[in-house]
C-alpha cells in the first residue's frame, strides 16, 4: 500500500508538470495592437525617432537608406508611423514613394514589406486607423490607399 504522504507527493508533482507545460505554450489570441492615431514625430540629427506616447524608439536611417540610398544626414523632418491591429508598424515620410511595414521582434524592427505607392512620392502623407486596415492619404490630392500587411488592398 502507498502511504498518504507518497500519494500527495505524486499528485503535487503531476500538477506542477501540467502547469509548467501549459505556461510554456500559453498564447493569447485575438490581440488588437491598433494605435488609434498616427504618430508624427521629428527625427533627431542622428536619426533617432522616439514615440514617447507609445514607448517606441528606433533609428530611421535604415528606412531612409532604403528610400533614398543616403544616410549621410537625416533628410526628413517628419516621420509618420502607426501600428495596425496585427501589430505591424507602417512607416513613411513626406516625399517617400513607399510605405515600410515593419514587424516588431526582440529588440528590433524587421522589414516585413516595402509597399510602393507612387513614383513621385507623397508630399503630405497621413495614416488613419481604419481597423482592419490602415488608410494612407495624400492630403494634397485627397487620394487614399488601403494598406494591410500584404500591401495595397484594392478598394
Amino acid at each position, binding site marked *: 500500500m502507498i502511504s498518504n504522504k507518497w500519494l500527495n507527493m505524486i499528485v503535487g508533482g503531476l500538477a506542477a508538470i501540467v502547469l509548467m507545460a501549459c505556461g510554456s505554450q500559453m498564447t493569447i489570441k485575438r490581440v488588437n495592437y491598433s494605435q488609434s492615431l498616427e504618430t508624427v514625430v521629428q527625427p533627431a540629427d542622428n536619426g533617432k525617432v522616439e514615440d514617447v506616447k507609445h514607448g517606441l524608439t528606433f533609428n530611421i536611417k535604415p528606412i531612409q537608406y532604403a528610400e533614398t540610398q543616403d544616410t549621410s544626414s537625416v533628410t526628413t523632418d517628419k516621420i509618420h508611423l502607426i501600428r495596425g491591429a496585427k501589430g505591424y508598424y507602417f512607416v513613411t515620410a513626406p516625399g517617400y514613394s513607399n510605405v515600410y511595414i515593419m514587424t516588431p521582434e526582440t529588440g528590433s524592427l524587421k522589414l516585413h514589406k516595402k509597399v510602393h505607392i507612387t513614383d513621385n512620392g507623397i508630399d503630405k502623407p*497621413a495614416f488613419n486607423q481604419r481597423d482592419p486596415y490602415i488608410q494612407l492619404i495624400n*492630403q494634397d490630392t*485627397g487620394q487614399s490607399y488601403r494598406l494591410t500587411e500584404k500591401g495595397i488592398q484594392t478598394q
Partner: protein
Amino acid sequence: MTTMKLYLHTAIASLLLFASAGLLQQMQAQEVQSDYEIVQNFNKTYNDLSDRLDKVSAVKEAKKLVDDVKSLQGNYSEHKELLNKALYPQTFEEKMNKLSSQVQSAHQRLQTIARQEDKLKQLTGNVNDFETQLEKLQQKSDSLQKVLANMNQRNRSLSSTVRNYRESVSERDRLVLNIIDSLLANYQQLDTQTLKELSMAYKQSKKNIDNNALKLIQTIARTNIEFLNSSQTLSTGDYLRMYSVQQKFRDMWNKIGDELIKIYKPDAGAEAVQSELQGSLDEWETKVADQTWKSMNRAFDENGIELSEFGDSQGLYQSLTNYVDNGIKEGDRKQYQNFSQFWNNTVKTQWAEYITGTNILSYDQMTNVDKKLNEWDSKTASSSYLWKILVAVAVLIIIVLGIMLARAKS
C-alpha cells in the same frame, strides 16, 4: 466663322472640365482627412480658446468666446469617437463641458461686473465731488491761517479774519459729516455678494478710477492731523465740534471699514492699509482730545472758575463736582453766580450738544451738576436774605431814631 465657334466651344468645355476636376480634387481632399490633423486642429483651437478665457476682460469678448466654444463643440462632435481615443483619459464631452462651463461663468461674472461698474462709477463720482469740496475748504482755511499767523493778538481780536477762519473750519467739519452720512448710506448695508461683485468691478476698472472711498478716508484723517498740528487757537466750542466729528468718523470707520477694505483693497496690502488708517484715526483722536481738554481748562480759568486741571471726561466731572461741593460749603454767593452763569450760558447752551454727543459728560452727570448747583443756590440765597433783613431793620431803626430826635427838638 464656324471653325472659330468650334474652337471657342472647345476652349470653354476644356476650362469647365479643368475647373470641375480641380473642384472634385478639392472635395476629395476634404473628404479624406488626417485623423492626426483633426486632433491637432481641435487641440489648437481648444488651447486658443482657453488662452482667450484666461485673458477675457469684457462682456463682448466673453460672449464671442461662448459662441466660439459652441461652434467648436458643433464642428468636432462628428469626430467624437476619434477624439475620445486621442484625449484619453478625458473624453471629448468632458473636455468641452469643462470649457463651456468656464466660459459661461466668465461671461456671467463679466456681466455682473459691468452692472456693478455703474454703481462704482456713481460712488466714485460722489467721492470726486467730496474731494474737490474738501480741497477748496482746505485751501481757504490754509490761507486764512497764514493771515492770522502774521497778526498780533490785539488785531486778531478785532479782525473779521478770525471769524472767517472759524467759519471755514466749521464748514469743513460739516462737509466731513456729510461725507460720513453719504459713506454710511452707500456702504453700510451691502451684502457679501454685492461686496464681492463691487470688488471685482473695482479690480476690473482700476485703471480708470483714481479716487475711492478708502483713499478719501485716508485723506480726511491725514488733513485733520495736519490741521491740528498747525491750527491757530480756536474756541472751545470749535474744538468740541471737531472732537465730535472725529468720534463720528471713527464710528463710521468701525461700521464700514471692513467693507471698504473688501472692495478697494481685497488682496495684498489690506492689513497694512487697515493698520495705517487705524493709526491715523488714533493720532487724530489723541490730538483733537488734547486740544479740547486744554481749551476747556482755559475757558473755565478765563471765566474765574478755578477747577482742578483735567485731561479726560472723568477728570472733568470730578473737578466740576468738587468745585460745586466746595462752593456749597463756603456759601459764596458771588462765586455761585459766576459759576452758574458760565454753566448755564456757555456749557449748557453752547457746548452741550458736543459734550453729550461725544460722551464727555453724560446727561446724568450734567443733571447731577444741576442738582448740586440748585443746592448751592438755596444755601447762598438764604444767607443773602438774612443780611437783607438785617439791613432793612437797621434802616428802620435809623428812621425811627431820626423821627424821635426831630420830635424831641421841636
